[in-house]
């Protein structure tokens, strides 16, 4: 490697090197299959993500009977649409109303409904969210741009066992007559965790 003018090519992090070391040793010893690693990475990068949860929410918005089934038995209701919770063994859906706002967290680690929302975003796993969501959720939401009414109750769900949760955000006003597919576009990951509302439709 040339070192002209004191410039050093960027070195890989220790974590990247350690991962290569582990992968190479475990592949050599027959414990890992490289294509299976590729498969999982691709599944999470391309196939499994919040668009799944958005479909469930949009269906709940247009079909009151489905919403009821979702609230009574989330695991069975998402299976109707071909989804699994990913992690955990029971899937529980909680709905936002004008007087109740829900927020999901895992204070102890990072439990998350990965089958519906994909892998959790970094902020969900970071210490600030894990520590503050259960003690000062209103302030956390305000900092993220969501100002709850003082009269609204806030319910925080700490995933301490094998249940996994998802929030049905309120359906935005001005969405009457929209197709289910278009409604799903308004449902963000942040809204299904509870740190945001669903997006308002574009004003034409």
């Amino acid at each position: 490697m040339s070192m002209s003018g004191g410039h050093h090519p960027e070195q890989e992090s220790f974590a990247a090197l350690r991962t290569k070391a582990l992968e190479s040793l475990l592949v050599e010893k027959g414990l890992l299959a490289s294509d299976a690693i590729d498969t999982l990475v691709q599944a999470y990068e391309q196939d499994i993500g919040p668009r799944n949860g958005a479909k469930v929410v949009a269906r709940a918005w247009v079909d009151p009977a489905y919403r009821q089934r979702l609230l009574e038995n989330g695991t069975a209701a998402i299976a109707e649409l071909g989804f699994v919770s990913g992690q955990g063994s029971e899937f529980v859906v909680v709905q936002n109303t004008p007087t109740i706002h829900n927020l999901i967290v895992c204070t102890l680690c990072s439990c998350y409904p990965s089958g519906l929302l994909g892998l959790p975003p970094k902020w969900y796993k970071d210490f600030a969210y894990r520590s503050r969501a259960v003690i000062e959720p209103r302030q956390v939401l305000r900092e993220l741009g969501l100002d709850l009414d003082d009269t609204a109750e806030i319910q925080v769900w700490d995933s301490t066992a094998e249940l996994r949760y998802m929030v049905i955000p309120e359906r935005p006003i001005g969405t009457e007559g929209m197709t289910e597919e278009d409604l799903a576009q308004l449902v963000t990951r942040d809204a299904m965790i509870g740190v945001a509302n669903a997006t308002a439709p574009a004003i034409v």
Partner: protein
Amino acid sequence: MNGVHDLGGMHGFGKVHIEKDEPVFHEEWEGRILAMSRQLGIALGPLPPGAARFIIESMYPTRYLTASYYERLGIEVVEKRALANGIITKEELDQRTEFFREHPASSVPRREDLATVEGILAGLRTQRHPSPEGPAPRFRLGDPVLARNLNWSGHSRLPRYIRGKRGSIARVNGWYAIEDGHADELGPNPQTVYTVGFAGPEVWGPNTDPKLRVYLEMWEGYLDAI
């Protein structure tokens, strides 16, 4: 265990930063180590319930607090499992790490196995369920309960912030294998897990938002009747 991972209610970590359009993996190694930890669960068999989390929780506190998520969940667990099972030695691992540092253009060897690929895909499509049977639940919807004050050093899913607090049963869930390191002292296994609701001021004190309610999932053995 009363570790630094038990973060509920702690102060000092600053603001929550949401990265716009964040990538699924920020670095390539993150996705690969996640996939490797899943595969090890198949190749070596699953760890007992809670054991993988306990490996992470047992990192020395300053290591836990300064390591990134995939360093904790991925590298720590894969490394510890591989070493504990005698698959690799620390010397081998350190030498190989050094090799890749000195030879950045070297590629990782490949081995392909369709059966493993199919196993991974099947796993992604599988819905797990609670245990099919267990003892009659001790508590019913609405019952007042007290979170026990247990401070054992093994793995626990009873956060410090809830111990000794009074709540009420909000949902009676299924039966689950106990994940606590002290399973033997928590009653029948598997046992009912309850969703328990606690009023904010009960958990955090008198100046707390009275409109806050915190719900946790709790194994029956974590609860006392009141």
